[in-house]
């Protein structure tokens, strides 16, 4: 999908107008951002916004997140185990210490 993020009042207003006028292309709206369908028309709308508002419009292309491809098993296991922890207030770093779960710094160094 195409992610459109706006950075000024004028750009945000134009995005709202575009979303209202082309609901069929809009997948999701978030205040000053929106996800558009990954069609050439979605691209056209995004580019139109950037033509009008320049640097106040950011266009990104998103990819679906497949956790079975993007991260390794230990990351999935760590997430599941941490959400299942007994004490809600335990930070992850403390939770992972002394276990097989990867520590947060190691996770930060690994790319998806």
């Amino acid at each position, binding site marked *: 999908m195409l992610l459109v993020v706006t950075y*000024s009042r004028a750009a945000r207003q134009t995005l709202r107008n575009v979303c209202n006028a082309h609901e069929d292309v809009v997948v999701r709206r978030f205040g000053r951002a929106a996800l558009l369908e990954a069609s050439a028309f979605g691209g056209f709308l995004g580019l139109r916004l950037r033509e009008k508002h320049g*640097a106040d419009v950011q266009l990104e292309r998103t990819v679906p997140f497949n956790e079975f491809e993007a991260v390794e098993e230990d990351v999935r296991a760590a997430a599941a185990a941490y959400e299942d922890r007994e004490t809600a207030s335990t930070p992850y770093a403390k939770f992972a210490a002394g276990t097989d779960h990867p520590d947060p710094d190691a996770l930060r160094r690994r790319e998806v």
Partner: protein
Amino acid sequence: MPVVDGEPGRAFDLRDRAVDVDEVATALRGGPDDAGDASADGSITVRCPSPGPVHRRVGVVRPDRSYPLQAALAAAARSRGHEASVADELADVRRRLEAIDPPAVSLADERRHVASADAPDGLEERLASLRGQLEIARERGEDAEDLAAARERAVADLAERRTTRIAAEQRLERARSAARDARDRREERLRLEDRERNLERRARRDLAERMQAAFERAIDALPGEASAGEPPGRVVGPDADGALAVCRLARLQAPVVVAVDRFQTAEAAAAALDAPVLLVDG
């Protein structure tokens, strides 16, 4: 003191003149020639201090239109020296806004380089085919010198293209991280702009509230059937009467253009509004 057609005064009755309210309003604002001494067709000239915030909102009073009375009341309060409780905060937000000058963000060149540095058409296929041909030629014991040279060149080409592509990608990546910082600044500016707008709204409400009692008295003291409503700035009756009441409350230098039938004479209007007046036909 306003000067109309060369004559100074505070109260002018223009009802018998062949000028309408729009022409008078234009002449008052300085007109299209920006000199402040000629109307569009030269039929009237008005010299006066340039209209301020109150005048811009309610300075031309005509029947059958609405007026932003809350904003006008707030401006009237300011003209009398009142300050909103959020004035300091608002000034602070505006100072911070002023100081934000986010750098431009355009990665178009970098993106174009990456796109055009893509592996050239068929280069990889060509290399694979040359390898195949070379192998066959060697098996057959043929002279493969030319083929080997061609393969060498293709390998070098491909390597060069890949290097170019990687360099372009790295440049784009660096530009993207610089852009992220620039966008943080833009985001901060947007946040401050929203804050500014909310504070302005609060300031207007606050100032209008403080004027409410005076507004009620002013509207009752003026001719017309209207009365003050709630919230401050609301009028039960014609909006024009609310506009006149705001004019009465505000300190005005530029003359109010009165195109509603409320006053017998321009002098009576000027006295009631406590401001210079140009009385015109509605």
